[in-house]
């Protein structure tokens, strides 16, 4: 062990290793002398991560991606991405002797002839559903707590791209078994693409290698699904996590938490134990679901054929909003002009859904422009303390939810004995008006909660104790909150509407006018945080509180 003494850097690892001596020390020394890894351990080993349940959503997304990679690698050893036609001769009797593609046949073999194959297929599919869901919830958490603010705007964009790529992975994977349902999904994609002006027909022919369905598409989607998209996703996840290290994690407002510190547990040992353990829990839950619940039973659907389709077909949940949007278009939105066909029933869907998701992507920049706030923000907003932002988010969620519900319009109609027309018309209304209603209600609720917070800070919380005063009057005793709890209620950023001022040329630009309008919309009915003066004055008003204390 003499080699260790030649290194005089007093890093934790080699010191620790020296003490334990023996194999661990020499192994650590061997690796460090070849990798300089002690530096990384020094930098990252005691890095602090704050604790909160909502921070686990991103972890769920990351872990389900790892599960997808593991189970997917297993599947690639058995799956064959070929659309050549074979006659099925596997173990599943009802489909025996039926012609199908090699892709479908090999997926059937995974399900019915390889032990544990069905389990891995179901783990892969359930984990994929969870992956997109976790990303979505993670994004909502980021949005509603304002974690996308400077310096994290770019990481929001990276995360957004990951969300889109996750959906693309989902769709390409869904299409690989080449069963009836996935073939219908591709048929819809083909129809959508053909509806695009000028290039649609050609793009469809390029994608499918000729007329739909052709014999190329599954192989092409397979390349995207297992090579190109995962490579991009892995690279972007690496960037996403690197940014978390660079920025350090955000934290919720609490006593002792400031914009200049980060409070939590060190990576080694507590965070590693909890996060590492959580990976196994997520994996275990996915495994449990996959052992108990069937997903995508392609043997019930049969191989793809352009002619049959069953009622009540549903896409995987994350495609639902786009499918639902297509269902909500009223009859007749298509016209011919100058000998060309304009399919508004498709274009409007593409444009509206496209605008919606692009708005999600650029929202951090819009808000930053309106507030003009150039500060770094590391302490999260409680959603109520940014009422307009929270209300916009609620409006967006309502819009998305309406589209999503529309993807099940037929199922709702049959389950609840409603007319198809009634369901669609109702959802058309909720899609158009629901967001406004959600905005209004959410904003009012946030403002009310803020007022309640103010009241609690200034006058304490209702203790439930009724006291009779000497004069015969009954009062409820209000208990003041302690200073730690109080800090949680008063520490938030405050903004006022933008005051329009002429620039050096004495003019007010159009952009500034728009900005001022938006700023007024955001902040005109703000509730300011309680100040020291207000607090002392309030205490003066309530001698009863103090005596009860």
């Amino acid at each position, binding site marked *: 062990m003499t080699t260790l003494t030649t290194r005089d850097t007093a890093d934790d690892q080699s010191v620790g290793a020296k003490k334990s001596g023996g194999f661990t020390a020499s192994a650590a020394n061997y690796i460090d002398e070849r990798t300089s890894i002690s530096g990384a351990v020094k930098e990252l080993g005691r890095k602090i991560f704050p604790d909160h349940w909502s921070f686990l959503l991103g972890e769920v997304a990351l872990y389900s991606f790892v599960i997808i990679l593991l189970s997917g690698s297993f599947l690639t050893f058995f799956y064959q991405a070929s659309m050549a036609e074979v006659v099925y001769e596997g173990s599943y009797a009802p489909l025996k002797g039926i012609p199908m593609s090699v892709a479908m046949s090999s997926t059937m073999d995974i399900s019915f002839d390889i032990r544990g194959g069905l389990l891995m297929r179901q783990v892969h599919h359930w984990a994929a559903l969870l992956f997109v869901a976790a990303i979505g919830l993670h994004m909502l958490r980021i949005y509603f707590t304002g974690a996308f603010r400077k310096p994290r705007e770019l990481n929001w964009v990276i995360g957004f791209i990951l969300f889109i790529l996750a959906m693309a992975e989902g769709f390409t994977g869904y299409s690989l078994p080449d069963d009836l349902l996935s073939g219908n999904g591709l*048929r*819809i994609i083909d129809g959508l693409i*053909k509806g695009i002006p000028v290039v649609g027909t050609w793009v469809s022919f390029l994608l499918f290698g000729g007329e739909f369905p052709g014999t190329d598409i599954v192989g092409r989607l397979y390349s995207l699904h297992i090579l190109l998209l995962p490579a991009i996703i892995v690279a972007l996840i690496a960037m996403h996590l690197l940014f978390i290290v660079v920025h350090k994690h955000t934290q919720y407002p609490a006593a002792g938490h400031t*914009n200049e*510190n980060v409070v939590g547990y060190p990576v080694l040992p507590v965070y590693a134990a909890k996060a590492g353990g959580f990976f196994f829990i997520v994996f275990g839950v996915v495994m449990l679901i996959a052992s108990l619940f069937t997903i995508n039973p392609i043997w019930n659907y049969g191989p793809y054929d352009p002619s049959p389709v069953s*009622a009540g077909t549903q896409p995987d949940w994350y495609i639902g909003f786009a499918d639902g949007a*297509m269902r909500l278009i009223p009859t007749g939105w298509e016209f011919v002009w100058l000998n060309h066909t304009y399919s508004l*029933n498709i274009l409007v869907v593409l444009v509206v859904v496209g605008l919606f998701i692009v708005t999600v992507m650029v929202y951090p920049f819009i808000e930053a422009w309106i507030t003009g706030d150039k500060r770094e923000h590391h302490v999260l907003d409680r959603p109520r303390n940014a009422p307009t932002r929270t209300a916009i988010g609620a409006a967006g969620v309502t819009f998305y939810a309406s589209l999503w519900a529309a993807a099940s319009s037929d199922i709702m109609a049959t389950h609840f004995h409603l007319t198809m027309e009634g369901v669609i018309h109702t959802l058309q209304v909720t899609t158009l008006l629901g967001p406004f209603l959600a905005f209004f209600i959410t904003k009012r609720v946030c403002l009310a909660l803020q007022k309640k917070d103010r009241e609690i800070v200034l006058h304490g919380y209702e203790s439930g104790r009724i006291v009779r005063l000497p004069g015969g009057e009954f009062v409820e005793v209000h208990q003041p909150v302690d200073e730690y709890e109080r800090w949680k209620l008063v520490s938030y950023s405050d903004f006022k509407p933008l005051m329009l001022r002429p620039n050096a040329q004495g003019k007010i630009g159009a952009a500034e006018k728009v900005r001022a309008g938006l700023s007024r919309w955001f902040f005109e009915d703000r509730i300011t945080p309680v100040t020291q003066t207000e607090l002392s004055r309030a205490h003066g008003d309530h001698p009863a509180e103090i005596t009860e204390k």
Partner: protein
Amino acid sequence: MAKDDNGAEHVTAADSPGAQLATSAASTAVVTRDSLVNPGFPPHRPRITDLDHKEERKAERTVYTLFYVSIVGSVFAIAAYMAFPIVAEDPGSVRLNNLFIGLGLTLALMAIGIGAVHWGKALMSDHEGVDERHPVRGTEPVRARAVEIFQQANEESGFGRRTLIRNSLIGALVVFPLPAVVLFRGLGPMDQDPVALLHETMWKKGVRLTMDPSGTPIKAADVTLGSSFHVIPEGLSEMGHGRLEEKAKAAVLLIRMDPNDLTEQEDRKSWSYDGIVAYSKICTHVGCPVALYEQQTHHLLCPCHQSQFDVENHCKVIFGPAKRALPQLPIAVDAEGYLIAQSDFTEPVGPSFWERA
């Protein structure tokens, strides 16, 4: 308490989030001088495992028991792999194989996870650490040095000065990916005209209507009132290459109705035969098969996006996102009484496309 010792200058700032750094003139943030003061960390509360040695021992036992349970789960999964083999043509064996391997693995994974988290929460030190943050932007000397490096590189290479070199390089870099784009032309067939292909199907004069998928020809007499048939052109079921592509265009729904219920246009009166009508089954919205026929109302429903077509009225759209009626296939009866097509469809079937009109 963990301390970050990166050595960058420490930025002091008040605890109030509003008081940090200079707010630019354009900012609408309100900086209150009178805000409350961050009280600092609340006192640390020890856990029961910190106070009670017995509880600590109990937690320790729980953790290692869970890890042993995980080993049991893994072994169980391996045993299940062997004990529950898949028996050919017995779907029940697949279910058992799936269930027991899965449950074993669930146990193996969950026990590790819960054990590790419990270890972290109950036994490891629960003292929170604090790292200091530094502004994300580099420090002034670092930024100055970065600028200097770029300037020096510019100086030494002449990137800014030798504009001809620079611009020609940019040009070359812009142009060089173009061949790759062109190569992708090979994705689509070179010898096909998409527009022409989308305008034609397998149907032509004299082709018999046959059942999907058997390919049996259909006699007009066999089509009873109120019945509907899924139909493909004669010869399609025997096709090897290109069968699905042709089927995706040629699939037809055959329906016999009371001729009095049919409202037919003058020029299309000859397209039906004794109340038997044939319509393209491919939805004019995005191409799903319009496979659901409501016998009572004579409506066809597309299960994908719920477009509804009225068979009584030349399959006009009565609800849903589709715009165009389903194309009608003109039919007749041949000498042997079998249904045949009079011609191909008179318009392209399926979803709209740019060159359609």
